[in-house]
């Protein structure tokens, strides 16, 4: 997989996004919500990077910070050679067409008082000097592309079903021919029967237009279906990042393992025999993360060191990165054997 070494379209380095907490009489800053706490990863051109994790672990914040919808506290985000984290307002605006976003809630992400045509043509109005006719033509084109009936161009969002609304959102994101799209849980709010339509559409578009996705989701089965590589987040940090099959077949971080085992499988026979790893307790607050490894409060395999030292992010096998003391120890005990094999397998599969 690494041989082909496709171009890195997005490089995220040590991205941090802290939200201040103000309290007390003078509203002084008393702490920070470390929503995203030092992420580094790359996204290659044409691939789909899945980002999974529990609610509140910072997935959306990551997506937004990458697109500079939030001003990151620290770190750099280089998209197509431009560090968007450092751009000024004017330059940022020029860079916007490159990168777009699809949102979680198709209802909330569409202005209820604008027609479909208005919504889809808004980016065109902002960034091109097309006239009304040209815009309408483009809108029609886009509607065809996402499988919306052209006749619906002057209807309002509330007149559509969830899946159709999400298509509107996708059409809007595609309007300026972006290279990179952040999909922030684009299917979470949809019914199962509609999810598949949207996922298929996203796949088709990627194939046709050569898009690059950051696909945020907590639905591990969809991510497995869609992503090339998968990053698992826990409390503001990536705990594991690996090519898809490697991750699903051989999760290394205890959290990833627990997560995968917790996903119910729609097959009673499998379910009857499957071993679930049940985690105790709840996710700690990102305002007050535990000392050491973030996962140490719930980890079934917790060790003393975990409560003290923050595990490092280490690439044990090519492309499979983990931040876990346990993995480190195993690795040290049996250096690189099994993993080589796995890697080879993956290389073949991809």
């Amino acid at each position: 997989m690494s041989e082909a070494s496709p171009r890195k379209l997005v490089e995220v380095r040590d991205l941090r996004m802290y939200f201040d907490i103000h309290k007390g009489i003078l509203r002084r800053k008393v702490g920070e919500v470390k929503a995203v706490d030092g992420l580094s990863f790359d996204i290659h051109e044409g691939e789909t990077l899945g980002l999974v994790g529990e609610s509140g672990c910072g997935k959306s914040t990551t997506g937004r910070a990458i697109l500079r919808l939030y001003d990151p506290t620290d770190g750099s985000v280089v998209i197509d050679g431009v560090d968007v984290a450092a751009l000024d307002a004017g330059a940022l605006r020029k860079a916007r067409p490159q990168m777009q976003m699809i949102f979680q809630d198709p209802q909330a992400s569409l202005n209820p008082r604008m027609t479909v045509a208005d919504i889809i043509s808004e980016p065109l109005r902002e960034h091109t000097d097309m006239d009304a006719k040209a815009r309408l033509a483009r809108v029609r084109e886009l509607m065809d592309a996402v499988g919306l009936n052209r006749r619906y161009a002057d209807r309002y969002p509330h007149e559509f079903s969830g899946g159709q609304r999400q298509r509107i959102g996708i059409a809007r994101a595609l309007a300026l021919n972006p290279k990179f799209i952040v999909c922030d849980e684009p299917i979470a709010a949809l019914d199962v029967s509609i999810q598949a339509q949207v996922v298929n559409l996203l796949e088709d578009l990627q194939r046709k237009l050569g898009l690059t996705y950051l696909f945020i989701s907590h639905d591990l089965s969809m991510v497995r279906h869609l992503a090339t590589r998968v990053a698992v987040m826990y409390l503001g940090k990536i705990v594991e990042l690996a090519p898809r099959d490697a991750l699903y077949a051989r999760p290394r971080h205890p959290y990833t393992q627990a997560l995968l085992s917790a996903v119910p499988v729609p097959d009673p026979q499998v379910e009857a025999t499957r071993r679930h790893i049940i985690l105790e307790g709840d996710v700690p607050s990102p305002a007050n993360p535990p000392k050491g490894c973030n996962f140490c409060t719930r980890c079934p395999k917790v060790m003393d060191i975990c409560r003290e030292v923050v595990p490092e992010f280490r690439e044990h096998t090519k492309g499979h990165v983990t931040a876990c003391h346990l993995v480190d120890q195993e690795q040290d005990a049996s250096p690189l054997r099994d993993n080589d094999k796995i890697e080879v397998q993956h290389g073949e599969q991809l």
Partner: protein
Amino acid sequence: MRDGPAPLLDVADLKTVFHTRSGDVHAVNSVSFSVAPGELVGVVGESGSGKSVTMMSLMNLLPGAAEVVSGEVLFEGRDVRRMKRRELLTLRGREVGFVFQDPMTSLNPVFTVGRQITERLRKHMGMGKGAARGRAAELLKLVGIPDAERRLGDYPHQFSGGMRQRVMIAIALACDPKLLIADEPTTALDVTIQAQILELIKDLRRKLDMGIVWITHDLGVVAGIADRVMVMYGGQIVEQAPVGELFARPQHPYTRALLQTLPSVEGTRTERLTTIEGQPPQLDAHPSSCAFAERCPNAFGRCMTENPVRLDVGHQHDVACWWDPATGEPRNV
């Protein structure tokens, strides 16, 4: 098909209508089913198929605009719809537990969790203040909330979503109900928390021998915990079978399509997901045709003119469809 123990709950021909400004919505159309003691029945179906409304119709918990227009609900042989107010209150309070869809809003934000649990105990178990508190703490412990004694004094917003859902379960279990109706209790939760709760329910069910109705649209969850599954579509139960049977031999085209759309974390990965095209049915009139006919790949003339009745296909399995997947031809009934 009802050869087990005498049913705990028996519902026949239930119809519920919403009277709205833009006309009536027939949310539940002739639903019949039963639940045996100690049985866990899973209910699946897409959003808007009438799962919640059906369950709320049972104990008359519908919002003002809704009306149960016909049907019979028997709880241990007693007719719920003809009950006196008082009797109905006792039934709701003592014998049936409800867990609702949204844990974030289902608890009253201005009362402590303790009060919301003890309220029920005191009214329906005749407990004193102290006894009720003790039992409440016990319940919280049971559903796995640490430091239960202290947390009784906390308000709902001080709990996370998963914990709130567990509180809801604690409330539902407070009076050792014979029947627990859980309406998508885990949909809003993360998988790891969902796993915790599923584990808890399996556990409790063994301990308390309750009948449980578990609504979800996650077939994975159903596969994991249910004994029997009902599939709802367009306000009707279109298929009903023991869990293994259903997954092994789905009969209704909707069920089949549903099973095919799902990707999975295990097993082989499909290249392309199957989809169900078309729109969910409109419920503005009582159905005169099969609700799924418009989206059904196998639909034929009869589907458009006659609403299918539920047919027993053996193995305690029944389905409402004119078409037989085994033969690939219409059934001849």
